[in-house]
């Protein structure tokens, strides 16, 4: 196949620096996938961790597949060819195991597309040899019919069990049985989970199926696996820097936040370890930009020590460093002098709610006065722009809260001459967040609030605001909170051509609207949280 005929051929070549190519002979062939384009998938740390861990094993060969862009999809269909792995160009249906890392619900239809192009039967019960694993999901139920085995929790914590089971037998059935007896794995086909009398009844379908399902976590981050033989693309990817994870989880209690619970408990990596990882990755990749990754860098207890240990190295090697999740207090506090030595980057502040009272309600703990203080000194940090995150659609929110977002942007534009980019999202009651039993605000009210915000925003060339459509928020909430009936909606919308729904520009509501109607989905019940428990309640917290 001549890849030059497709847009961005680097998406399909699989010749990155540090790519691992092994013959399949005598090895267990595994292909891991990400249901979005190469540029996004290659920016996903989880996928890289899985790739490296599995390839450390000499009897396993792990390759990658991403969502192909339209041109390749069309080519494969027209020529009756199968979607293939990047490394060896092996058709997906020749692998024993496929594993998908989901981190955005809106990509579920892309996943079905990859299966179809790869010649993999869509439903779990139709499959004879291949096993399809899914990970990264909080609520597995909407895609339960399409996945044989879910990994619940963190991959590093189950990788040894996974490898052991794959080695023990090559029979699909025997493998699935072994997984069903191992903590951290969930086999949806062994259970029913229907809504009866307004509550979800989770029932094992046979005696051997364990009654409780658990998420698993890495206990010791310092000794958990980190990929250092860094797969380095030859083309730009979305997050074109190496993320070095300094902590996992978050000690804060923002009520809308799913991540704090998904990556619970809060664990930190020692600065010495972080430094070792940075040096190894730089040596292996030559990457010119790094970032220190965590949900909330300001809570990292060893930040001063870490910066003191690495800043000189970054400067000597001319490596850029960004610290995406710092709080503003750090810019004014003891880290100020150290941060000023960083190569230019942007300051990100998750304000979420512009008025103090609402911010207190959602337990977002930041001091806005400091933001304005900081705005005045920002130019001394080499920052190019300020990125702000807001949300609306919270319970008990008033119109003043909406207008306050616009006012805050106005004031900041006045106090600093940097570019400001504001990303405004709608509050969604995501599973396992503190506010999981709240409702999604009515569509009509969300539309009114959106219009109010758009009308109050200051006009400035320095301000860039992104606002997703209300419909895409509704869909995301449905896919996040859905039960097994939502799987039918996903499948139906996919047949109607819904693809790349996470891309604002490509998102279309029509196929979903029709799919919901045709499947008779009681979707309002899911959005409005009218059930006494939830589709995901069976997973131990």
């Amino acid at each position, binding site marked *: 196949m001549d890849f*030059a005929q497709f847009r961005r051929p680097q998406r399909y070549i699989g010749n*990155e620096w540090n790519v691992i190519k092994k013959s399949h002979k005598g090895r267990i062939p595994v292909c891991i996938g990400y249901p979005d384009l190469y540029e996004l998938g290659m920016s996903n740390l989880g996928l890289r961790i899985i790739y490296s861990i599995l390839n450390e094993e000499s009897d396993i060969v792990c390759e990658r597949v991403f969502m192909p862009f339209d041109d390749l999809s069309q080519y494969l269909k027209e020529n009756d060819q199968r979607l293939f792995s990047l490394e060896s160009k092996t058709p997906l249906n020749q692998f024993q195991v496929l594993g998908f890392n989901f981190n955005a619900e809106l990509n579920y239809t892309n996943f079905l597309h990859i299966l179809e192009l790869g010649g993999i039967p869509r439903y779990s019960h139709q499959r004879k040899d291949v096993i399809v694993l899914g990970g990264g999901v909080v609520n597995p139920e909407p895609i339960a019919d399409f996945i044989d085995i879910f990994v619940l929790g963190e991959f590093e914590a189950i990788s040894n069990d996974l490898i052991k089971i794959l080695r023990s037998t090559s029979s699909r059935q025997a493998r699935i049985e072994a997984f069903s007896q191992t903590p951290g794995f969930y086999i949806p086909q062994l259970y029913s989970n229907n809504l009866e009398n307004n509550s979800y009844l989770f029932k094992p379908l046979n005696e051997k199926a364990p009654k409780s399902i658990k998420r698993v976590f890495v206990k010791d981050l310092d000794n958990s696996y980190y990929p250092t033989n860094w797969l380095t693309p030859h083309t730009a990817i979305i997050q074109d820097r190496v993320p070095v994870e300094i902590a996992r989880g978050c000690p804060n209690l923002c009520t809308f936040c799913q991540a704090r619970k998904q990556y619970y408990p809060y664990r930190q990596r020692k600065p010495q370890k972080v430094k070792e990882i940075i040096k190894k990755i730089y040596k292996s990749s*030559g990457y010119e930009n790094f970032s220190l990754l965590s949900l909330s860098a300001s809570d990292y207890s060893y930040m001063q020590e870490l910066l003191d240990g690495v800043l000189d190295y970054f400067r000597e090697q001319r490596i850029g460093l960004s610290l995406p999740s710092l709080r503003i207090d750090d810019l004014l506090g003891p880290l100020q002098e150290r941060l000023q030595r960083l190569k230019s980057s942007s300051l990100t502040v998750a304000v979420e709610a512009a008025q103090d009272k609402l911010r207190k309600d959602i337990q977002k703990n930041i001091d806005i006065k400091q933001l304005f203080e900081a705005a005045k000194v920002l130019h001394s940090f080499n920052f190019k722009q300020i990125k702000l995150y807001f949300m609306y659609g919270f319970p008990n929110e008033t119109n003043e809260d909406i207008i306050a977002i616009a006012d805050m942007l106005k004031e900041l534009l006045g106090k600093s001459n940097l570019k400001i980019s504001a990303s405004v999202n709608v509050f969604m009651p995501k599973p396992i967040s503190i506010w999981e039993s709240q409702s999604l605000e009515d569509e009509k009210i969300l539309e009114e609030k959106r219009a109010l915000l758009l009308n109050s925003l200051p006009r400035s060339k320095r301000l860039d605001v992104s606002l997703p459509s209300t419909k895409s928020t509704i869909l995301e909430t449905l896919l996040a909170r859905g039960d097994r009936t939502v799987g039918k909606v996903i499948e139906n919308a996919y047949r109607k051509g819904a693809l790349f729904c996470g891309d604002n520009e490509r998102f279309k509501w029509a196929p979903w609207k029709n799919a919901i109607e045709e499947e008779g989905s009681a979707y309002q019940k899911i959005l409005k949280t009218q059930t006494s428990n939830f589709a995901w309640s069976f997973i131990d917290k």
Partner: protein
Amino acid sequence: MIYFSQLDLIHILERALRRTDLPIYFTQGYNPHVKISFRSGLKLGVTGKIEVVLYFSEKVDRERAIQKLKEHLPMGLNILKGSQMSLKEINKLRRQAK
């Protein structure tokens, strides 16, 4: 056959250089990067030759530099020939080209 654009090629060369322990020359300023210049363009998906100028902060052994760089270039990219010039000579060539 190679499939990357000229912009990609800059990154590929920069990262390859950074992986070697050669004394790379970096541009000055807030956003230092490896200095690389091209003396001819390259089309995507075409086999061909391209002339690239790489800059070092001190004199390097030509053979050693070529060897090191070759070790760090991705498959499909090779060095056919390398010659060494002082900054003066480069600037002179530039003026002639204009």
